[in-house]
């Protein structure tokens, strides 16, 4: 499929997700939404992703809530079990910590514990990411927690078209999905097909083809990987870049096939390196490609500390393009 046949338009993640929500609401009266400040009277959500929905679809389908995340998640779970398809906003990922019971012990498990009688077709939208000096309690990437929790899918889109397509799929998915947004992925300018449709969950995207090393990333970090491409090229490294898009279940086939082809694999995420998502990918790759890799699987992620406030510390906390280049060089030098 070549992109020149597809009509594209300029947009960003915020507009793309907003468009997905409008289309989903239009197409399916069972789609509902709730979260703090999500109604238009309150501005349509802290990032404006919900703009226009309450005006168009009414205050009963689109509800602003008190600051009470357990009650937000509970209302979403109950409504989902009653046949609705709620999109629940937990304003920031750090605030999932006040409603983990609802997410983990209930949303993720009710289908299994009920032997399939209950279903919880629910999307949890949440925002995170460092880079705006919001410090230690507003910027953590805790997707690994949810990947480790059986029964919930984890989606973390990078580019606007993917954000729209994955949101459309997440809403129609019969199971709970946590859908992670960042300032970068919402507001970085981009483009997408005018008629962007659903994109299946669990399928990665080869963003840049290459031969020497496979670099897997997602979300805001993906932008910082892309910023490394020029330097990598200058260093004579042809990197195949894969956007994971869905972190759990992740697309083992695409990642492993690429790593087998290039012989090297580097996983880069904003989440902490220790016990992070990259560990699962590395552990899987060393198992499935034992003896076939030219270098160990590399992992780049945040250091083991809280997100620091001071701008320079925050910059150093994040995996920067230069770190990606250095690690790719180290790995390609290894044989």
């Amino acid at each position, binding site marked *: 499929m070549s992109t020149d046949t597809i009509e594209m338009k300029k947009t960003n993640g915020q507009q793309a997700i907003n468009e997905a929500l409008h289309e989903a609401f239009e197409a399916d009266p069972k789609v509902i939404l709730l979260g703090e400040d999500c109604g238009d009277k309150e501005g349509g959500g802290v990032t404006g992703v919900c703009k226009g929905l309450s005006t168009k679809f009414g205050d009963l389908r689109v509800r602003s809530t008190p600051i009470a995340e357990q009650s937000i998640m*509970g209302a979403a779970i109950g409504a989902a079990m009653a046949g609705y398809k709620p999109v629940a906003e937990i304003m920031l990922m750090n605030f999932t910590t006040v409603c983990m019971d609802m997410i983990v012990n209930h949303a993720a498990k009710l*289908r299994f514990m009920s032997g399939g009688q209950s279903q919880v077709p629910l999307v949890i939208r949440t925002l995170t990411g460092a880079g705006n000096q919001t410090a230690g309690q507003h910027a953590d990437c805790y997707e690994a927690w949810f990947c480790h929790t059986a029964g919930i899918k984890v989606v973390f889109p990078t580019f606007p078209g993917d954000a729209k397509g994955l949101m459309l799929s997440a809403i129609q998915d019969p199971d709970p999905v946590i859908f992670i947004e960042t300032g970068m992925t919402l507001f970085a300018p981009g483009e997408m097909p005018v008629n962007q449709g659903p994109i299946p969950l669990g399928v990665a995207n080869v963003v840049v083809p290459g031969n020497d090393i496979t670099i897997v990333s997602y979300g805001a970090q993906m932008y910082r990987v892309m910023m490394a491409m020029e330097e990598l090229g200058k260093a004579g490294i042809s990197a195949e870049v894969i956007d994971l898009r869905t972190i759990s279940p992740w697309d083992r086939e695409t990642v492993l096939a690429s790593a087998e082809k290039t012989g090297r694999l580097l996983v880069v995420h904003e989440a902490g390196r220790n016990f992070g998502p990259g560990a699962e990918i590395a552990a899987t790759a060393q198992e499935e490609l034992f003896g076939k890799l030219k270098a160990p699987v590399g992992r780049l992620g945040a250091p083991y500390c809280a997100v620091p406030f001071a701008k320079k510390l925050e910059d150093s906390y994040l995996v920067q393009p230069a770190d990606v280049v250095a690690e790719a060089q180290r790995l390609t030098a290894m044989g």
Partner: protein
Amino acid sequence: MTETTSNRASPDAATQLDIYRRMLRIERNDDFTQQQIRRGRITAPYYSGRGQECIPAAISNLLDDDDKICTIYRGIHDMVAKDMPLKPLWAEIMGKVDGTCKGKGGPMHLTHPETGVMVTTGIVGSSMPIANGFGWASLLDGTKQVTIAYFGDGASNIGAFHESLNLASVWKLPVIFVCANNGYAEHTRFQDGTSVDQISKRAIGYGMPGYTVNGNDPVEMWQYANEAISRARAGEGPTLLECKTFRFCGHLLGDDNKYMSPGELDAAKADDPLPKYRQKLLDEGIATEAQLEDMKAAIEAEVQQAIDFAVESEFPPMDELRRDVFAKEISA
């Protein structure tokens, strides 16, 4: 409740008898459960609702199949009162494939949507936030369905209680919050964990009606439940009912009850609401001895059939571990 209840509708004879039937069904089912535990046929922890029968019996009389309940680990009495069929219930608590959850949930997670048993949770407080979701769905659907959130006195101290009552009130949801105040949270006495003498007073903080009711008096229970359910159906929003009662078998079956005062349990048992209510029905000519004995025999037969069914049922196959994680079976 200190205030007179005379201005509230009273249950007629048929209603009173129906409440008794539900209480008896709970009590007989509980007794048989305890027997099967002694025989080693049930190996899971059991949180008996014995002593608390009146509460769900009176409430369930007022509910239809499509009204919903969200209940807790100590909730089998709530389900039995709601006329959940006993065969899949028993198969479930024995961990069999014909169980309502195919043996995967067990007694703490019994679910039976056809009779409105939507969620059974083992996490204190968690029945309430989810009940609100069903309430929201009723508003969206435009039906008059109500949802009951059952929970204990201890649960009234956890955050989920607060968030749920607040949201239900702000959104005027058709949800009734039913607190079975049995005086204890595990081994901790009510007043050692709770800062208010009557949990119903907390309703003031949510701008909703709240009542402390004698949860061992079927008539009073029914009167307050009727008012609360009527309000909910009329779109007037939620109510908090604190129902005073006692658990006769301690927190968990096998409990040593050492944390209770001497004589406390005996006194409660001496005041057992079931025989008292039976006598009242006889005294008031609502039922005859023979009628009640027939009722009992029928219930016991039903329970026994359920047990036989459950014993016969198979254990679930191993690939059930891959099913119901997601809608689509996951690969091995």
